[in-house]
């Protein structure tokens, strides 16, 4: 495979053509923040947390959705990007009800970690009050829409890995929310196999195991990535046979 030479935060690397900047950054030993990206799932570029600056391009680009290019000079951590990420993060906080003190994901939450990393200790936006009902109809899992950041990792995990297509997205703007089977309570969704991949993929505490309490999130986020990696390896073996 032809390699592409580029520079990320001053580190010169060679990456396979077709790889995106987020993957390439790992080769350069650089971690680009992100919420909607999860190894093993398709790319949507929904959260815009992974925006990077590329010399010669006027606007920042999402690292997860931008393929590597020859001689690119990429910067992942500039004052402009930091400010941009902080504002985005504040907006995410403002849209939901992110009360870490009562959340199952506290201590294992990607949103909380990002806030700590980027120094977001307060929110400057005052959104209109929202009253979103928890869906606890599923026997094993719960869904709290007020904690959802609409990364759609659950939607993709369900469709691409489990193949159940239970989760979808409905509504527009601030009304956007997840729906199970076109809008029935999760517990009534006939397509749901109760596999829990969506819960494992959730970066926050929006999807959780019922019966768990504050800071008790146990399911590994890497589950979906591990499964897809193993499947890929198996399919290679099949090809070799």
């Amino acid at each position: 495979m032809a390699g592409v030479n580029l520079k990320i935060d001053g580190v010169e690397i060679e990456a396979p053509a077709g790889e995106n900047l987020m993957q390439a950054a790992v080769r350069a030993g650089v971690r680009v923040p992100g919420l909607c990206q999860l190894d093993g799932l398709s790319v949507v570029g929904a959260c815009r947390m992974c925006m990077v600056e590329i010399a010669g391009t006027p606007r920042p680009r999402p690292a997860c959705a931008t393929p590597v290019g020859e001689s690119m000079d990429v910067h992942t951590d500039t004052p402009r990007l930091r400010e941009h990420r902080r504002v985005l993060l504040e907006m995410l906080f403002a849209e939901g009800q992110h009360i870490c003190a009562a959340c199952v994901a506290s201590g294992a939450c990607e949103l909380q970690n990002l806030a700590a990393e980027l120094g977001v200790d307060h929110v400057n936006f005052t959104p209109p009050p929202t009253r979103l009902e928890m869906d606890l109809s599923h026997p094993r899992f719960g869904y709290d829409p007020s904690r959802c950041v609409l990364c759609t990792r659950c939607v993709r995990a369900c469709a691409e890995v489990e193949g159940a297509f239970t989760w979808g997205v409905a509504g527009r703007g601030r009304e956007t929310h997840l729906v199970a089977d076109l809008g029935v309570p999760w517990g009534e969704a006939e397509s749901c196999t109760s596999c829990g991949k969506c819960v494992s993929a959730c970066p926050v505490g929006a999807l959780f195991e019922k019966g768990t309490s504050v800071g008790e999130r146990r399911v590994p986020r890497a589950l979906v990535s591990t499964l897809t990696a193993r499947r890929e390896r198996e399919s290679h073996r099949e090809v070799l046979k």
Partner: protein
Amino acid sequence: MSRTLLIDPVTRIEGHAKITVRLDDAGAVQDTRFHVVEFRGFEAFCRGRSVYEMPALTARTCGICPVSHVLTGAKAGDAILGVEPPPAARQLRRMMNLGQILQSHALSFFHLSAPDLLLGFDSAPGARNVFGLIDAEPEIARRGIRMRRFGQEVIAALGGRKIHPAWAVPGGVLGNIDPEALERLRTEHETIVHDAKWAWARYGELVDAHPAEVAAFGDFPSLFLGIVSQDGNWEHHDGLLRFIDAEGNRVGEDFPAERYADVIGEVADADTYLKSPYHLGAQGGKAVGPEAPGTYRVGPLARVNLAERMGTPLADAALAEFRGEFGRVPLGSFHYHGARLIEILACVEQLGELLNDPDLGRGPLRAEAGINHLRGVGVSEAPRGTLFHDYRVDEDGRITGVRMIIATGHNNLAMNRTIGQIAEAFVTGPDVAEGVLNRIEAGIRAYDPCLSCSTHAVGQMPLVLRVEGPDGTLLHEVARG
């Protein structure tokens, strides 16, 4: 012409309140009111949340006794799941409650009330606080701070943090005691026993120094409510609830938490966010009238009055001394301070037993179950008194209704009466001396009220006294803080 004195807000209590004293034409006290002036609305915004979140959510009612809410919320959750937590979990929960009562009592006595008791009610207000105490009586301040820290460290050893540990959950607890912290607590325990004995030994001297306050600080007959153990001894977490009257006789049958609404009524007044609970039987099922025979008190004095024995040697010796001096059922609210010191001894002794129990924390820590009941009531003795959490849920475990009755609420009628008694003894006209304001406040403070919890209010506490005419016109104002 009648006049009104207003103390707004009351200081060195937890929360935000004001006091009005209405004077008649002759300048004598006509009426007194204790108002709690802020509102937070936990009972509304918890609706729609999962029952598993409730201990953590309700813990945020207050930073002084989050543990009491965590434990009571978890007990209400146990009732909804229909499970009894495993023995080890129950033992650890009890241990945390003892740590909580100890640290809060230490705060109340040494940091908040000792300045009045040791420096005097008429001493300069600028120095009548914990810093003044450190200057005047460094030893008592040091011991108080050390005792509070020990209680906080018991909480942290179990829940991982001193404030708001979301550690008790429906069915049990999240984790075991930290072994390193356990060792440290064992080492430090003896010093704390010594401090608790030393504090109790000084109580007699404080009572002797303040005869007028002992007589005027809410010395009246009332009922008392609290949890008692199966054998009628001092209890703080597991057991039935009991009412006694001013002579110590049982009022009605002992009852479990879920039956509280059969025994306790609540009235709301327009001028305060703090409701007034009362004993339904004593009121003859009626709402509260001027005589208020259903007035009852909770908290240290109630628990000590309810108990046959404390159950540990030092606390029992102190209890015998207390009763020898003040009778089987001391009625003066000043004696909340003494009861608090006896409870400190009991907590320290019981903690010692737990710290040295080789089976502490051994075995399963959590019972798992689904939603089996649509209502659950939890009760526990918070430092300030009996705490009820009453939850209703739908079949998925979503909260549909929350009611919390908090210690300070139980004491509301008694606190009103206490203010009246102090005002009658010390207020003789609109020109009220600062020391009198302080006595009125201190009467309230004897109950160690927690208004954050009881109304879910927060606030800073400067103090304003207003003297008002019958039409509300401001006649005289004293401000401080």
